[in-house]
């Protein structure tokens, strides 16, 4: 792990792999809860954890360098969310082609994978789900769709994701859910928070 300065008030922890991202995010969250770290934001991503709103990044970086990240689990507690999914996405044949497989096999694989929320981004409540083997990575559409409906379950790169609200998008559509993924009156407002285990169950 390498710590990179980001402007006057932020630090980027550049991690060696996604597992280390998960451990560092959990560790930093714990330390903040314990009052050992001041940061307005702790933002995990594909290979990094960003700390923003850090009053003294230099001394904070020196302290972090002496910490060892513990297990990932304790941060916000691990929960599993079942997302009832109707597998009727129009890009299923395209995914099957990329996987050198069949549509029923693609659906079976997706419905039986334990996903994990690696990070959120793109839109409030949009979770990047990991859990598929690397060989199942798929490219985005060459031209994004102008409007993808809310609740669309989709794949891009190594990730699965669910659109919390309608938006333009280039991910390959495999299904849909009616589960609410972002609700400003809920605590937390996102259903799929970093570290959450997710199953895209047939339903």
């Amino acid at each position: 792990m390498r710590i990179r300065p980001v402007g006057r008030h932020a630090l980027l922890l550049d991690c060696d792999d996604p597992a280390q991202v998960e451990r560092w995010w959990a560790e930093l969250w714990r330390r903040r809860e314990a009052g050992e770290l001041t940061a307005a934001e702790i933002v995990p991503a594909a290979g990094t954890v960003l700390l923003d709103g850090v009053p003294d990044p230099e001394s904070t970086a020196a302290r972090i360098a002496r910490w060892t990240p513990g297990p990932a689990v304790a941060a916000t507690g691990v929960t599993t969310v079942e997302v009832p999914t109707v597998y009727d996405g129009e890009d299923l044949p395209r995914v099957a082609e990329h996987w050198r497989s069949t549509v029923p096999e693609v659906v079976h694989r997706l419905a039986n994978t334990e996903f994990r929320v690696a990070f959120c981004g793109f839109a409030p409540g949009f979770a990047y789900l990991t859990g598929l083997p690397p060989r199942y990575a798929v490219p985005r559409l060459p031209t994004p769709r102008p409007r993808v409906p809310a609740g669309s379950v989709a794949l891009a790169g190594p990730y699965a994701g669910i659109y919390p609200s309608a938006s333009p998008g280039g991910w390959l559509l495999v299904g849909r859910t009616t589960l609410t993924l972002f609700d400003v009156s809920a605590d937390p407002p996102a259903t799929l928070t970093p570290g959450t285990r997710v199953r895209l169950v047939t339903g």
Partner: protein
Amino acid sequence: MTGRPAEQGTVGAIEVRRAGPRTTVQDLGRPGWAHLGVPRSGALDPAALALANRLVGNQADAAGLELTLGGCELRLTRAGTVAVTGADVDVRVDRRPGDVGRPLTVPAGAVLRIGTPRHGLRNWLAVDGGIAVAPVLGSRSTDTLAGLGPPPVRDGDLLPLGRPAGPPAPVDFTVGRPVPDELWLTLRPGPRADWFTAGAMALLLGTAYTVSPVSDRVGARLVGAALPRAVAGELPSEGVVLGAVQVPADGQPLIFLADHPTTGGYPLIGVVDDVAGLAQARPGTTVRFHGPQR
């Protein structure tokens, strides 16, 4: 007339007779939710909004209006104290001229008109009691990227006002931030400066850029020398900050402002210390960067 969901205990309202080209409700934003993909949002120049609030006796984080190119005509349904900060602009209470940066007394039913700024782009308007639309995740700011908070202000809106908290500040005059013809920004390299050639940093620090007309609350897009990459390929998504200078595939830098996304897939060559000046940078404004030590 369109009502907005309001909190209990609102006192009077702003009747929007003319919203102007781009007016939104803003406070100091909704920090603390970036890990769920929620942008910070908030006033593009938080100090200018806080000053307007102080002038009318509000807490610094009360919600006010952010005007882009002015053009607003507002009627207060109750008597109130109002302050306008930001760009140099013509302000009138009915026919009476008022000053930017001073508390103005507005009788019930009077019409407040804010013209088009002579220089710069934006103004912040505070009313005693603050704008009391319902907060979303702790903030009343309109997030133009994620669509959180109230929608942009439209003609005919009725914006509820809160109960005045304290007396207006005993000030005669405040000094506004001047709008320079050429904006100098302090740039700190990183976190992905190593994705660019040494020549790219020299171009960024040594040549002039201009603000593009497609700039908005998400970011100030710049036009100038394209910044060549040393590392090809896609950067896996990572967290971004206010003032980050992102360089998309076309090599033209973009400086992230308040409604910036929480993560991005293009490398950040550096981070600007203070973006408030960009809130006043009209399209065509010259922008130059210098390092932390001048």
